[in-house]
């Protein structure tokens, strides 16, 4: 019985097995190999008991990992060894619980990273720039709400699934972006601090888990593809702490293996007839890493995405793609077509206008557009980029 590892549990199981034997053997007669029967029965009982223990004390022991403790609780490891398939289902249930819309988005992110990722509370806190005590408190409150509000541990029924899946994907993408965009003040190297990039790795790991758990969900494949393709350009994205535009990036620094993996995930998403927001964004990201970028196709994809999301930011991206495909005038016209008020204070609208005006040689108009963009602020490396553009205008 040593393989069960847990003395108390093993003893309970053995007692159970004997009790069951008394009952069964009475009814059905003594089996041919009573000892083997007893051991097998005790083992089954242990699995039952482990399952029950998890269903009760936690499904939360998975969540209870907010306190510093070894990687997985003992019973987790055992169940994992004994029943891999069941464990996969439970992981999926756990993801849906962590990303339940009754929890705040901060809580969803923290819980997902803690319960499903491999990061410690200290690491999560560092990545989101909050004190560890704050993050611990956030996790405690979230777990308490799951218990007290009756947030279920289960894969949502079909009629709730689209909304809930969207919420899960949004959390994973948010984790990715927190790691991807997070450039700390005064970063001298080409990358953010390790704690930030850990978020990117966690998000991709979660993305892989999602497609394994939901092999028929095109948007899950779309999200994974999007993250892989975006992150494949990481090493080329910054040079000496400065942002490098896509067109100026050193392509030899791109991670070809990751691009191939991203394209594979995208093909799968398209084969599943996916046309959701992550699939479309992944298709755009895939175009960006081609040798011959098809800007007209990118503009079409952005158009589709804009209809889906109604987002003026997406419209702005479509305008930028149009400018590449048909020239800066077409891009400018598309920018003028965007509901002006919606993006009036959006710095990228003004920097994009500045860029197109610069290309058209309309230096004065370009200058005031760039100045407006600088005025609206932003991360330091972006501001430096805009000032360089301004300087170049003379």
């Amino acid at each position, binding site marked *: 019985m040593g393989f069960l590892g847990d003395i108390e549990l093993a003893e309970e199981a053995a007692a159970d097995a004997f009790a069951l034997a008394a009952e069964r053997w009475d009814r059905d007669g003594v089996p041919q190999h009573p000892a083997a029967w007893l051991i097998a029965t005790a083992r089954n009982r242990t699995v039952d008991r482990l399952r029950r223990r998890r269903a009760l004390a936690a499904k939360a022991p998975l969540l209870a990992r907010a306190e510093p403790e070894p990687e997985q609780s003992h019973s987790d490891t055992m169940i994992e060894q004994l029943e891999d398939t069941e464990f996969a289902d439970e992981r999926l249930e756990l993801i849906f619980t962590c990303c339940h819309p*009754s929890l705040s988005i901060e809580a969803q992110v923290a819980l997902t990273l803690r319960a499903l990722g491999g990061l410690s509370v200290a690491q999560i806190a560092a990545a989101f720039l909050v004190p560890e005590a704050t993050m611990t408190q956030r996790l405690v409150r979230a777990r308490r709400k799951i218990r*007290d*509000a*009756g947030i*279920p541990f289960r894969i*949502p029924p079909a009629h*709730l699934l689209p909304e809930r899946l969207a919420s899960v994907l949004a959390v994973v993408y948010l984790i990715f972006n927190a790691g991807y965009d997070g450039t700390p003040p005064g970063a001298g190297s080409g990358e953010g601090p390790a704690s930030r990039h850990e978020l990117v790795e966690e998000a991709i790991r979660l993305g892989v888990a999602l497609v394994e758990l939901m092999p028929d969900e095109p948007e899950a494949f779309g999200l994974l593809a999007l993250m892989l393709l975006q992150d494949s350009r990481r090493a080329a994205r910054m040079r000496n702490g400065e942002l490098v535009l896509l067109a100026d990036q050193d392509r030899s620094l791109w991670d070809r293996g990751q691009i191939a993996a991203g394209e594979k995930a995208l093909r799968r998403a398209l084969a599943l007839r996916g046309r959701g927001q992550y699939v479309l964004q992944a298709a755009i990201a895939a175009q960006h890493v081609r040798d011959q970028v098809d800007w007209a196709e990118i503009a079409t994809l952005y158009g589709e995405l804009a209809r889906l999301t109604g987002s003026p930011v997406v419209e702005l991206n479509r305008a930028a793609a149009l400018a590449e495909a048909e020239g800066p005038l077409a891009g400018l016209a598309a920018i003028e077509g965007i509901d002006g008020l919606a993006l009036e204070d959006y710095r990228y609208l003004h920097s994009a206008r500045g860029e197109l005006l610069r290309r058209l040689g309309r230096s004065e108009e370009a200058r005031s557009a760039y100045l407006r963009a600088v005025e609206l602020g932003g991360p330091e490396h972006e501001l430096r980029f805009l000032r360089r553009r301004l300087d170049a205008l003379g």
Partner: protein
Amino acid sequence: MQYLIQIYANGSVDWDSMPAAEREAITAEYIAINDRPGVIGGAQLQPVETATTVRVEDGRTLTTDGPFAETKEVLAGYYLFEADDIDAAIEVAALLPAARMGQGVEVRPLVER
């Protein structure tokens, strides 16, 4: 578990200028919710002007006219709902006319004793 589904009015709906037929249809929707499995109670409240606030100081009961808190959003009705988890309560809450008419619907679990 039990949940209190609270309906908050915020003055965003102009009941007076609404055609009678529409008003009745909305009332019928609220009444129909009572027949759903799991709904174990519920009522519409009289307007907030009918409220009386009570406190006791030095053994004396002090009553004042009006609600405990003067807010724009006032509790207008509630359902008491029993279900396995919050998803079921959210589904019922989403059926309420108030939820789609820009009023507030809040789901709160009850403390189990």
